[in-house]
């Protein structure tokens, strides 16, 4: 399957016009997806997957680059409409700085890299990783997986890419098992098909990570996994990102989950001890429901928590970002940008640890603009209005009827007696 795909999938351009007429912007958008743009034979031989997704509107272009040649990374850039991506493949595959650039300098960029995957021994079954002793933590480097492109597809709603990381080998350590990553670039505002059915805008990419049947450290009794993300944003070095947990009333789309975690980049930042507010229209964000599913059948009974920890600053930007798309794009300039890390551990107290199901998921979206907020669905509004409206209408009608009838009968009786 994958071999067949490689043969014609390498230099493939999918071009189509999306005539979606949005309420806000009535201009049609042109979206274009290219796998390994202008790479040809070079990438074919070396199992490279770099996907370039470009959406052009009359005012700007939104570019996404998904890369699995180094650490799995996603880069988002906003440019003037005509800008294109240029890759110097030789340098890029060597991980050299500035081997990847846009023909016009972007007005905004935002990116993430899966920095590390942790396996920790949750001795006391707390679900929390922050008080686990160092000897009970193993680090797995995403670069040391073999990343294969399993499939991709597209329709009017999204472009989807399925990747699998296998054959983990780092020095003497070898692990069996798979890390599956499913990426979706959505073309319109909707809920995604897979649980937790995240609401996404037309400016978002959803990343779904599954740690499937992964071999755990044999000396760890109570293994759980955690993912560390590196986040970089085109903001002042002195500013900070913000991680928020929002309570929601509505768990209609993600049954049993009443929270939404958001990492937002600063609109206001302190420059020279003065607060400066950004004039840019939007900013990059990450958003997820704090849930991890423990079975391919994703439902409430097969769910546990995805626990996040505070954002931490990164000391050496270039060193952290090396071997990734982010370093290839930003180069030495990376030191001058806002960069932070976040860890999300999968599992919670009493769920039986990873060994119970050998399956853990985490799903998040990365997007540009402001994070979308859930609204009540049409069904809910209908139930409320009918449920409350009907009794009121009936009671009013009955009230009027009774009044009228009383008046009638009274005059009736009077006439009888008179």
């Amino acid at each position, binding site marked *: 399957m994958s071999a067949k795909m490689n043969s014609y999938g390498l230099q493939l351009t999918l071009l189509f016009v999306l005539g979606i007429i949005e309420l806000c912007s009535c201009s049609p958008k042109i979206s274009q997806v290219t796998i390994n743009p202008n790479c040809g034979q070079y990438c074919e031989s070396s199992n490279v997957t770099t996907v370039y997704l470009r959406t052009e509107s009359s005012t700007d272009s939104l570019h996404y680059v998904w890369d699995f040649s180094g650490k799995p990374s996603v880069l988002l850039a906003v440019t003037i409409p005509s800008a294109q991506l240029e890759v110097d493949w030789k340098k890029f595959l060597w991980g050299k700085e500035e081997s990847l650039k846009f023909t016009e300098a972007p007005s905004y960029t935002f990116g993430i890299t899966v920095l590390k995957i942790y396996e920790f021994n949750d001795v006391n079954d707390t679900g929390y990783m922050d008080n686990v002793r160092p000897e009970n933590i193993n680090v797995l480097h995403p670069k040391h997986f073999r990343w294969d492109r399993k499939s991709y597809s597209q329709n009017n709603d999204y472009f989807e890419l399925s990747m699998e990381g296998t054959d983990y080998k780092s020095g003497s350590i070898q692990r069996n098992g798979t890390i599956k990553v499913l990426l979706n670039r959505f073309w319109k505002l909707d809920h995604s098909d897979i649980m937790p059915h995240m609401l996404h805008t037309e400016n978002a990419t959803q990343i779904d990570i599954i740690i499937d049947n992964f071999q755990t450290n044999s000396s760890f009794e109570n293994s759980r996994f955690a993912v560390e993300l590196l986040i970089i944003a085109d903001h002042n070095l002195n500013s900070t990102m913000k991680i928020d947990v929002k*309570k929601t*009333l*509505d*768990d*209609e*789309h*993600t*049954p*049993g*989950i*009443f929270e939404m975690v958001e990492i937002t980049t600063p609109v206001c930042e302190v420059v020279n001890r003065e607060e400066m507010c950004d004039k840019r229209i939007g900013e990059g964000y990450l958003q997820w429901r704090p849930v991890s599913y423990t079975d391919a059948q994703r*439902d*409430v*009974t097969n769910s546990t928590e995805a626990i996040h920890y505070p954002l931490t600053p990164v000391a050496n930007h270039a060193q952290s970002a090396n071997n990734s798309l982010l370093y290839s794009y930003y180069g030495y300039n990376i030191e001058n940008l806002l960069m932070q890390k976040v860890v999300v551990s999968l599992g919670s107290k009493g769920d039986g640890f990873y060994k119970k199901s050998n399956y853990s998921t985490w799903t998040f979206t990365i997007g540009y603009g402001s994070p979308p907020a859930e609204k009540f669905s049409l*069904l*809910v509004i209908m*139930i*409320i209005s*009918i*449920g*409350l409206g*009907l*009794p009121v209408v*009936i*009671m009013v009608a*009955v009230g009027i009827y*009774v009044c009228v009838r009383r008046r009638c*009968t009274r005059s*009736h*009786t009077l006439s*009888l*007696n008179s």
Partner: protein
Amino acid sequence: MEGGIMESPQRTIESTDSDEAALQGCCGPKKPLYRFLGLALMCLLGFGSYFCYDNPGALQDDFKSDLDLTTSKFVLLYSIYSWPNVIFCFIGGFLLDSVFGIRLGTVIYMGLTLIGQFIFAFGAYTDAFWVMMLGRFVFGIGAESLAVAQNSYAVLWFKGKELNMVFGLQLSFARAGSTVNFLVMEPIYSWVAESYSGYKCIGIVLFLASITCVGSMICAVLLAFMDKRAERLLRRGEGVTPEVVRLTDCKDFKGVFWLVAVVCIAYYVAIYPFIALGKVFFIRKYDYSPAAANNVNSLVYSISAFASPLLGYLVDRLGKNVSWVFISILGTIVAHGLLTFTFVNPYICMITLGLSYSMLASALWPLIALVIPEYQLGTAYGIAQSVQNLGLAVVSILTGMIVDSGGYFMLEMFFLAWLCVSLLATIGIWLSDITTTGGYLNMTPGQREIHDGGCKQVEATEREKLLNSSSTSDLSTDDLLLPHSDIHIRNRYLSRIGANLPAASIGPAYRPLR
């Protein structure tokens, strides 16, 4: 059903001297002591079955490990209890009316409950799951029909004055039975586990639990003797030709009864299935610890244990049952609404829910006794309980699916929709009651007395006329029950000449009997 049955108004004429003495003594069936004793027995009657019903729940972990049960197998122990009762409750109630009579019926149903619990315990003792299932099946048939019999007893003894409170008290005892079970079963299990282990231990524990059923059995027998004595002394039912109860009678039940049945379904599906799933809801939405979530969740039951008799007493004094039902449903809608659309402290929501639920139980169930003649009460309560069981059985399956696909938010919407249905049904009850009886169900006790008194007077005069007059063929039962007035006479005249009667003068089609 039309016309009802009439109590003999001259009940003391044939009393013998000894009966007279018994009536006047402190143990007379009309004296508070006698009635109180009866009430206590009536309440204890249900204790055993409610205690044993939740035995598996209280020992859930031990059941699973000792008998090697999966969760789905464990749940079967409850399904086999509820599903058959969708039909058996109705049959049980009908047999109570038509074949057994209340005294024998109660003893038989209590016997079934006891035997069922024995079979269940024996099945556990021999580690035979199918025997356990059989036991639960027999137990279920007995216990649910017993509840019907319990209702009938309460109506027979207390209708008119204290019925609402008695229904409330019975509910409290049911809750008490279930609560005591949850408190004592674990200690009993650990005590037995010192000398036995595995499935034998579970078996012994269940045999011990069946002692409560034996106690209830004794209550049933005592109550039968007391009721027999009361019947003899009060000459209850004398001079009344026994009505033949047929299964087809229920098609003649008044519309109001079916609306009450709709409330029974629509209201209770928004309570029990919610509580079944409530614990996880509180953990998820309000970040409660499992223990705290359990506390909030069980608040409804603990409140109802205390509030039901008190609210029942209130309804007894104030009457106006339909209004109370309406207010209870509104209160429940508010409570569910707060749980759905706000993050208000769930204790406030659950207290509102608990009070509303207790009020509804006290005000709704006696309505059936007001609209159905006494000789069909068993059938009527059986039907109400059957449809309630059906609703709960179906909805319990649905709720699980709703949570999986639409979350707790949609589940709450589902409950709110059902509550709106029950609100509409209540409006329907009120309307049909106003149009048929001038609002008898929503009267205060005083007004009801006047209404009943009026009816009795009319009945007496009409009887006299019936005996004297030779041309009675054109007297409808409605005529017998209506107060005499010039309008009434005019209507009779109009009907004789074949003119249409004004709609307002269509009288009650039934007569409340006590």
